[in-house]
């Protein structure tokens, strides 16, 4: 098992686990905007995966897919963020106890 095989497996495992974790955030994200951010991360992970596949596999032709994804990938987030209203699965409470509040941050104007 040479160096390139080990690197290929490591890159594949990292990208697959990253996409699974961002899919978890898409499923459990409390608001639509969290899901949109996670979807953007998933799009960039797909771009990274296609680039890695271009580099590691001989004779692959995924360059048009890369251009298309990098051009179109932001339109979904723009459209959703343009028409989003206030909807969360539960109301956000900014006064919860674990909120880190620096002293004197509010009146530093």
């Amino acid at each position, binding site marked *: 098992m040479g*160096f*390139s095989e080990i*690197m290929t497996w*490591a*890159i594949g495992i*990292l*990208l697959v*686990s*990253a*996409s*699974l*974790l*961002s899919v*978890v*955030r898409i499923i459990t994200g409390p*608001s639509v*905007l*969290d899901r*949109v*951010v*996670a979807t*953007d*991360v998933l799009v*960039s*992970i797909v*771009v*990274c995966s296609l*680039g*890695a596949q*271009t*580099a*590691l596999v001989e004779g692959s032709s995924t*360059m048009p897919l*890369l*251009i298309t994804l*990098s*051009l179109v*990938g*932001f339109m979904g*987030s*723009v459209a959703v*963020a*343009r*028409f*989003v*209203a*206030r909807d*969360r699965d539960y109301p*956000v409470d*900014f006064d919860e106890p*674990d*909120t880190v*509040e620096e002293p004197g*941050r*509010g009146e*530093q*104007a």
Partner: protein
Amino acid sequence: MTWTLDSVTDVIGMVLILCGAILCLTAAIGLLRFRDLLTRMHAATKPQVLGVLLVLCGVALSKEGGLHIGTLILVGVFQMLTIPVGAHMVGRAGFRTGQVAPSDIHLGPSKDHADASRGDQAVDGQTPAREDAAPEDGTS
């Protein structure tokens, strides 16, 4: 393993792609562990710009032939052009729908900004009135 130029560039390209993959995993972990919209956006920006650029540099180093260099530069330029637009729209929507803590943003000494950042008037996507944003009263 003889160290020719091709093998050296292959190894460097693979290491760069591995760094991009590590950044992707870091962003996914940050998406899961951070608690706020702005911190999640902060974590999400890392693979979108630096990760993709590292992977593109790795592809450019490990593929032989020069025809794909222009395509890779185009992909990087498009990525850096479009990602700030989406991030700006998401951040603005989060601000208007009241998902950003008022202590997380500093808008100036005006009292109306504190009211606007709470998002009470902005449920239907309307911009809160901010005509009085211009004059600074010298206390900043």
